[in-house]
């Protein structure tokens, strides 16, 4: 159960709330280690919400938990993770003369580690509108 995705880290409201509670606390750690992928990619790689995977590139690697999203929420082939230490360890320091590292759009390898401990959340039925 392996695959490649393009990672788009970004902000989320839960990450902002967790940040205010404290970056060293569980809530922030949990939010920033949740990898959102499309339902199609999860199915292709045999992954379900709650599964633990290793994501890596030529810069670093980190372990995260998968969350499969409904159709249309994220394009197939892409993954989203809230900003935080896990996403940072995959950023390259090269800024192409701008000061800004390429923090969105890096290719990552996704490798299954183990099944999630919690009961899987069933995805809502698909509708024509997605």
């Amino acid at each position, binding site marked *: 159960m392996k695959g490649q995705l393009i990672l788009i880290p970004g*902000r989320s409201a839960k990450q902002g709330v967790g940040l205010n509670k404290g970056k060293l606390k569980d809530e922030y750690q949990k939010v920033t280690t949740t990898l959102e992928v499309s339902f199609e990619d999860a199915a292709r790689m045999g992954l379900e919400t709650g599964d633990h995977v290793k994501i890596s590139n030529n810069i670093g690697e980190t372990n995260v938990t998968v969350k499969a999203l409904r159709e249309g929420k*994220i394009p197939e082939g892409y993954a989203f993770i809230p900003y935080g230490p896990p996403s940072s360890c995959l*950023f390259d*320091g090269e800024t192409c003369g701008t000061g800004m590292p390429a*923090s969105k759009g890096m290719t990552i390898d996704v490798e299954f580690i183990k099944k999630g401990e919690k009961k899987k959340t069933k995805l809502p039925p698909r509708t024509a509108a997605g």
Partner: protein
Amino acid sequence: MSAVSKDNTIVNEKIVENATCTFCGCCCDDITLTVDMDKKVVTKAKDACVLGKSWFLNHVIEDKPIARIAGKEVPLDDAIDEAAKILIEAKFPILYGMSDTICEAQRQCAPIMDDCLGTIDTTTSVCHGPSGMAFQGVGEPSMTLGEVKNRADFVMYWGGNPAEAHPRHFARYAVTPEGMFTPNGKDDRTVVICDVRHTKTAGVADIFLQVKPGKDFELLWMLRAACKGVEIPDNCKEICGIDKETVTDLFEKMKNCTYGVIFFGMGLTMSRGRHFNSGALMALATDLNEFTHFVAKPARGHGNVTGADNVVAWQTGYPFGVNFSRGHPRFNPGEFTTVDTLTRGEADAALIIASDPVANFPKPAIDHITSEKCKLISIDTKNTPTSEAAHVSIQTSTYGINTGGTVYRMDDVPISLRPAFDSPFPSDLEVLTKLRKKVNKLAKKLNRPYATKKYI
């Protein structure tokens, strides 16, 4: 003021009207805080969004030392002396952050680095730094959020997710408020969202455009060409993921509105193309002024990151990435920006103010800043991975909750803060003023030629 709590005990309560939330760049200054003055906590934050509520309600006075050196508690003055010694003795000291503190504290920073012949950089360099570079290339068709509220009938968000990052942006400034020339709120506006993901923001859109990742520049350039009379190409969908008819319709709506605005986020500045993406967007907004009134603005993130850029710009002439090693300010992103100076292993001392590079920077930069090659000094209000890794760590009080001062909203409008209650921790202004004096004294001892320069 006293009040009776639910369990019938008298609570020493204080109400703070029109308090400012400094969590994000919206800097909403209409929050009503209820403060339990005995426990020193905010118990209610009326009108705040989910982020604002968590900002105010999770603020507690922590039981921890004001200053530490190598993990050991020390008096504040000792920590300041040690920090000044590290900075003045360093060969390539850097100062980074400043986005979560008041302008009055930010003013102390450039003089410190000038005396140390060091480099000053704000969190802008890993946020809208590329937009800052683009401003210098193509200009900024600017406005205030008040103008947007009262006039804008075409509102677009590009590469950002304000529903999660700036939750009150819609209700307070751009989408639903009833303005002077938009009396029916959202009914008088066309709201367009352009993003690679179908985010929560997409829910408010009249038109949602799911652009192919990394193809924003192509779409922007097509729209720019359309302004000059060039037809949208037939293979538009193949290029950017959106069909020709939709892009043509979008262009017509842009052209025919009365007052158009595009807010853009880090979807543009952090992806391939960086400042070219921001530049293309601002050039498009400028081009659209051939047809109507059109403006653009970056949706800035942290509370006072806009203030940091303004303060550093008025003191040095440049907004971020400024180096003083030759005795005068030089600006060069890529050379003097913090990710670069750390990744290349150049910085041997780092003063980090109100920010957390150890959590947010690329791995090679984190590896260097946490190594023995770089002495790390942290001034922050909370425990963070950076404050925990620092050799000298100083805890300060929180701006907007414990201390007053001035912040700049994302549209460069200055706002005065109304603090809720005191803190036992010193303010950033107090710590940085002391550090500035100490560094200056050491610089004069070393006969540094610019140590007598006057700063505004």
